[in-house]
């Protein structure tokens, strides 16, 4: 089963002076179990796109299907959809509201009608997954540092155990270790449970390291949709639209220019290290 976007367009404030076409005829199939990276310049429509996947926004035209059903037909269970397709917002403040961290994380699963014991178990487990220390559990989420808030927001969605997990720039504001820890946790979770993950990110390095497929947005349109190695081959075109290849790709290109016989399609540090070692031995 899958999420399908069929000719989806979204225009903000249609008919006013402020009219903005944020999505233009987007067609996408998100099959079960994939780890997808969604990248694009600021304002390219990523947040708008992901808010369509759980029915939070309605397309101006086009349709969205979840497991074969059009999510905007009468009688479609939207509440159920939101627990199945969990979205972590770009700004964690937009999703935190309870008086303490633990209650905040309980909100989602409780809303799903789960038993109280299960709710608390899940909240605890999720907070552990995101690496928030116990001392913060009973503090107001608003009294936390930026990175701590981010963790709570992610935990709140993980606790619903969604089938599809959408993370809108989940690592913005996390310290480097936290960045790796959270993404490792998500990758592990996906390996164990087979959930689908959509990761919106401005870090080409993170995307290169974790995802199987990259969708590149440019001014509301899908520009590339391919595996990471293939997408980053178009680094010149990506630069034109505000993006880049991972930094190691550029390093490899420089080394090659200086006569070191390395493969320049490399996108991770490990690949780069191995490539350079091999070339140096020659």
């Amino acid at each position, binding site marked *: 089963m899958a999420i399908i976007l069929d000719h989806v367009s979204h225009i903000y404030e249609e008919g006013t002076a402020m009219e903005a076409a944020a999505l233009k005829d987007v067609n996408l199939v998100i099959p079960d179990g994939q780890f997808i990276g969604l990248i694009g310049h600021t304002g390219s429509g990523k947040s708008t796109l992901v808010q369509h996947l759980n029915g939070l926004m309605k397309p101006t035209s086009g349709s969205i299907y979840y497991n074969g059903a059009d999510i905007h037909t009468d009688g479609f269970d939207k509440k159920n959809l939101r627990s199945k397709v969990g979205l972590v917002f*770009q700004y964690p403040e937009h999703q935190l509201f309870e008086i303490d961290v633990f209650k905040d994380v309980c909100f989602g699963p409780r809303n799903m009608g789960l038993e109280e014991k299960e709710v608390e178990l899940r909240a605890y487990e999720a907070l552990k997954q995101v690496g928030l220390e116990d001392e913060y559990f009973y503090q107001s989420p608003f009294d936390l540092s*930026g990175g*701590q808030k981010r963790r709570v927001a992610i935990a709140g969605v993980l606790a619903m155990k969604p089938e599809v997990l959408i993370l809108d720039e989940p690592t913005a504001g*996390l*310290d480097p*270790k936290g960045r790796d820890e959270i993404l490792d946790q998500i990758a592990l979770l996906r390996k164990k449970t087979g959930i689908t993950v959509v990761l919106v990110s401005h870090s080409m390095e993170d995307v290169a390291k974790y995802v199987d497929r990259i969708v590149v947005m440019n001014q509301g349109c899908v520009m590339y949709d391919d595996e990471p190695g293939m997408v980053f081959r178009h680094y010149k075109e990506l630069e034109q639209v505000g993006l880049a290849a991972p930094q190691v790709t550029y390093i490899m290109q*420089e*080394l090659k220019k200086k006569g070191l016989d390395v493969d320049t399609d490399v996108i991770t540090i*490990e690949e780069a290290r191995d490539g350079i070692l091999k070339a140096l031995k020659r």
Partner: protein
Amino acid sequence: MGIIEAKKLIFEYIRRDEEGNVEGITRAVDEVDLDIKQGDFVAVLGHNGSGKSTLAKHLNAILYPTEGTVWVDGKDTMDEEYLWDIRQTAGMVFQNPDNQIIGQVVEEDVGFGPENMGVPTKEIWERVEESLKAVGMYKYRKHSPNKLSGGQKQRVSIAGVIAMHPKCIILDEPTAMLDPNGRKEVIRAVRALNHAEGITVVLITHYMEEIIHADKAIVMDKGHIAMQGTPREIFSKVEKLKELRLDVPQVTLLAYELKKSGVNLPDGILTCEELIEALRL
């Protein structure tokens, strides 16, 4: 005396319940000394919750020391008389741009600061134009800031601070929401302000690449300063940084990995050029 100085700065957040009884105390900044010279570019690194934002909020008198003293341009921040002087000397860009955007139109928002300072109208418009251009947002001047994307908003809030022509700008993770290009543009703009205008910069970031050109880096850990030095000195200590939940720039990491695999390389390589040179290519 430097533009920013702190002596044994301590700050404690006190949490109270509904009746006002103290529930808990968090010491967010713990005996921090600072001495930042006019024109310096200082980077502040540190794990989540290490006290960076709390420290930054002391530099333009949003928070006041629980103990110790902070001076901005020689003025004690506790001295209410100087509040506006201090806020004009040290402009702040926050972690979340939503919290500081006030105008209905981008250019109004950016003009708000200088207007409040009593800058003549004509000059306000010049400043608005110059600062919006500096962050690449001039063509959005007639837009509503609330309807911009995350990254666009962030650049508008930076323009708003630049327009006040402060002696010092404090940026609290200004690039967290930007695309690679936007990140480069902002860092370039900040470096240009630092170089050309001699504006002091305090940059808080979790992106290690952004600070390789800083004069000095300060690493915070649980409220205190754990390391300080030039970026090269700091980034030579890969293991120590990892313990502090930090990282090194990608080039530095690659060089470190190569060194571990037996390639003869020095510590603290910060740029691709340095790597090429060290590999004798």
